[in-house]
């Protein structure tokens, strides 16, 4: 079982920066990415926030590089469709096939490249949030923003139990591997079905334990208090404002730049 991004967030070097500031930076960058008409802004965000994540938050570069591959399969498939479907402008490439001909025009190439840039910039902004801000801090922010209590309570309980269930899933998986499970394709399906079934049973039991544990601790419909968030440091606040201003400026000046 691979490690979750959350595990890195708990130990990253920006742990003590106010989570509100980090989330603001990440979300604003995402919005700037998807509203940018040209590819320069998203690419700038991708590079600068990656540098911040690896350089300031001290996330291992090799791990970060592998993370960038996660959206690749989705991006390749859907961007391929857009590349060939979108018209406008001169024809760049033409691939004749038996039934029809695939053509790439400048319009299609520009839109595809813009989308690649946006996905890259958006994902890097998302990585910045998830690698520097532990979920526990995000709960604090949600509480301060008055998200519905029942939603936060449920999210907190799910968060806690994700780790309990992951641990058990990993152990069940290892024990199946030890007994030669997942050998052939059909065996894999059968083994996976057993894993899911056993896990379901174990999870349901944890649920019953949880009910008793909450009762034993005088549960009265109330849940956690917000943790105390680290104070907003003026340097960070100023830095984020300047950065976002810079990006907005870039966005405005590079709006017309396209791939071709």
């Amino acid at each position, binding site marked *: 079982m691979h490690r979750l991004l959350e595990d890195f967030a708990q130990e990253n070097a920006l742990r003590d920066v106010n989570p509100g500031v980090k989330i603001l930076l990440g979300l604003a960058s995402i919005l700037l990415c998807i509203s940018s008409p040209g590819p320069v802004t998203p690419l700038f965000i991708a590079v600068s926030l990656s540098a911040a994540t690896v350089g300031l938050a001290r996330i291992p570069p090799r791990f970060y590089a592998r993370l960038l591959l996660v959206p690749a399969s989705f991006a390749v498939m859907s961007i391929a469709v857009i590349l060939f479907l979108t018209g406008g402008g001169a024809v760049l490439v033409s691939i004749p096939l038996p039934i029809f001909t695939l053509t790439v025009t400048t319009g299609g190439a520009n839109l595809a490249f813009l989308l690649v840039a946006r996905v890259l910039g958006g994902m890097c902004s998302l990585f910045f949030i998830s690698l520097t801000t532990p979920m*526990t801090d995000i*709960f604090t922010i949600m509480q301060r923003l008055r998200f519905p209590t029942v939603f936060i309570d449920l999210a907190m309980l799910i968060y806690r139990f994700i780790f309990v269930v992951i641990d058990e899933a990993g152990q069940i998986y290892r024990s199946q591997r030890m007994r030669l499970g997942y050998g052939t394709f059909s065996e894999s399906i059968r083994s996976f079905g057993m894993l899911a079934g056993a896990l379901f049973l174990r999870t349901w039991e944890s649920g019953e334990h949880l009910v*008793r544990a909450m*009762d034993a*601790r*005088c549960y009265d419909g109330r849940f*956690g208090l917000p943790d105390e968030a680290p104070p907003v440091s003026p340097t960070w606040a100023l830095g984020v404002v300047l950065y976002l201003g810079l990006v907005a400026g870039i966005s405005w000046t590079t709006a017309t730049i396209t791939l071709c």
Partner: protein
Amino acid sequence: MEGILEIQNARYRYPHGPEALRGVSIRIVQGSKVALVGPNGAGKSTLFQLFNGMIRPDAGTVSFGGAPIEYTARALRDLRRRVGLVFQNPDVQIIAPTVYQDVAFGPVNLGLARDAIDRAVRDALSAVGLAGYEKRPPHHLSGGEKKRVAIAGILAMEPDVLVFDEPTSSLDPASSEEIMELLDELATDGRTIIISTHDVELAYRWADHVILMEQGMVLARGSPEEVFADHALLRAARLKPPRILDLYHELVARGIVEDRTPPRSVLAFTDCIEQHLHGSSLRTAREAAGTVYICNVDAVDGDAVRRLITERPIGHTGAMGTRAKEFANRELILLDFTYGVIDKCILKSLIGESSLILSSGGMIDHTHRRIAEYSAESGRALIAVTVPEPMPPGSAGRLPGYL
């Protein structure tokens, strides 16, 4: 003594299940250390759920503080605040995403104000030795640490009775020792502590009072020596006698030692054999006894302790209790003893070597008392000194030993 928890003739059957309790009557005295001993499936956990009203007996009564439990939502909440139950598996007891939020869970639900909650959490975490862990997510803690968080979550509600289901289950010896020591510390503050265990060795050393259960019934109750001396009873409960008691009975059967009060510790056992060999009244004074120095870590700093160790003829150093161990770790003081510290130091003292016990405020008197008791019983005067000496009342500064 006052009975704080009393169960009379309780019977309980799980829905669609076997009868788990078949007429159980017990009485727990306030401030006592009680061990409920029996094999898995004897009904210990079911009995625990009667204590805080998680289940209601089919027949019989459960009383807390002299009055029968009322099974209304309000009364039950109050009962559960006062009778805290620590489960065997901390993973199912820890609910919230951070240590702070988890420990605060009880106080929040009790409706305390924010600063009262903060104080309760701080006190509870410092009592279990986890100050500074507030923001950690529980899944990054070790097994022993998780156990402590679970205990802190209960302590934060300031219960009168603490109930522990298999407190040392799946912990390694060092963590088990720390948890049992924590239980001792909690007991010195006047709380009633009840544990369930199938570890006879543990119950034999730790408990004042033992209740032996099997198949939903109480087989015996009394002092550990009484209950565990009856091998037939232990066999009926599918348990093994403590090894040290086993050895004692074997030696009695062969006429090597006389049959008296069985020893509970290595110290008592050694004495028992030595007395038999060298006459029954006084131990032959081989040499002058060593001194036991007792140092309150709440009142000194690391340098003072290091000075002490070099200046006095101290051969062995031990630490008792969570705070003292933390202190030794922090100050890089090497420890020779980390469990059974008082007994070990007495043993060293008897062969003429001096030792130092690092302890926190509350345990100092307990240590003196234990050494004095031993001196009286064995007839050999041992010297225990609190260092640095407590200042006379009224003088400036902190008063070691009386914090």
